[in-house]
């Protein structure tokens, strides 16, 4: 009985979290979200794919701009529909707009 109630509660919480995330998405539209973990990793969410990939420079397409991650010995640790995780020695992250690109 308790287990069932717990399950229901978790389900309800996950529903709430889902709803909030959708609200956030609608608020920010399709803006790219860049998270940096020190100088070791960069996580880019809501990307539009890889444009260029080398050890020193990775160029990622986003809705409004392009993101250029520069560094040394860089590697894409994971890639899926929503996010890219880049690991290595990160030296800089640049946002390139249409004119610069």
């Amino acid at each position, binding site marked *: 009985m308790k287990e069932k109630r717990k399950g229901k509660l978790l389900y309800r919480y996950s529903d709430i979290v889902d709803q909030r995330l959708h609200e956030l998405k609608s608020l920010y539209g399709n803006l790219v979200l860049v998270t940096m973990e020190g100088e070791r990793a960069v996580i880019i969410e809501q990307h539009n*794919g*890889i444009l260029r990939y080398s050890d020193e420079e990775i160029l990622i*397409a986003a809705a409004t701009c392009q993101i250029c991650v520069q560094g040394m010995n860089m*590697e894409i*640790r*994971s*890639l*899926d*529909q929503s996010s890219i995780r880049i690991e290595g020695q990160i030296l800089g992250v640049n946002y390139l707009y249409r004119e610069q690109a």
Partner: protein
Amino acid sequence: MKKHLVSMVQGILCVRIQGASPELFFTVCAQDGVVFHSIQRHADGEYTAEIFSADHVRMRHAARIAGCTVHVLQKSGIPFLAAGILRRKILLIGAVLFAACVFWLAGRVWYIHIEGCESVSQKELLEALAEAGLKTGVRRSRLPMNSIKTDVIIRIDKLSHLTINFRGVGAYVHVWERKDTPIALDESTPCDVISDKTGVILRLRVRTGVSKVKIGDTIQPGDMISEGTVVSTQGKVTLLHALAEADVRTWYTFRAAIPKETLVGSAQPGVPSYSMILGSRRFPLQRIENAVDPWYDKHIEKEYLRPHPDFRWPIALEKTYCSNIREQPQPISPDMAEALLQQRMLSRILLAHPDAELVNWSFERKESAGAYIGVLRVEMIETTGKEVPIVR
């Protein structure tokens, strides 16, 4: 760790991607829902990556668009391992046989651990257990535990109780042996009378045997009071059943302590809750019935519907008070502590020596860090005289 386990269960493929536009290939794949791990660039236009085995088919579409070729370099994970094993039938049969063997062996008792044996030997107990049905190699689920216990207790007289517990493949037998009560010796059995107390002899009654002590002597446990071996002047030895007892004056000192503070609970009346009783069923009229405090005193009052003093309907209104009990430290006064200690210690002494006569006693109270210590010195008159058979 969890991610690693999931990938091991799903199966991982290490693939090499070559072609005109690998970046486009990765982008299209990601949009199709393919998840890549550890994408590494080796040479111009050549990449390696790890994917889940289920995503391999989905990559064809992207490969066609981007003009790339995908080669599987390595396969790892449980699905590939299982596929490799399933091809080897003998290995599979061996694994199944091994599992069956382990299952078959795990349901049996493979060792018996015995505890609590003092006068009964372990060998004797193991033999009795084997005869009752518990021996190494028997199947655990088929053992009639109650009949085994009864059988063993019947077979070995010295046992009063035993428990059998199973842990893994072992049986843990704990036995309690029967404590023999001293049996009064027959009057024809030759015996000596010895003391089992320390004190000064006040009165002495020797009916048979040779007295070895006199009034005013100090005796200790084991000292002879009356001897059953009588040697005549002609040198003839006669063994008698000695009968004697001595009243001895004994002194004891007892110590006990109680803390200087105690916890006293004070009840605080809570909000009453009401329930309706119809027949044998109770219907709460409030939503929450639980007591707000874990320490509470519950008082229930029932008011039945009575049209006549001798008759009542099975309908009642129940009123429940939950008085919270708050415990608070309260110091104990020295006088109260002394009275308590004195009363408790005296009652304990009288319980321990029911046949003794309390002649004199003195009580002294001492104080130490956080406790009162009571020292009780008593003087009693007790009767002693224990018969011990003469071993020829």
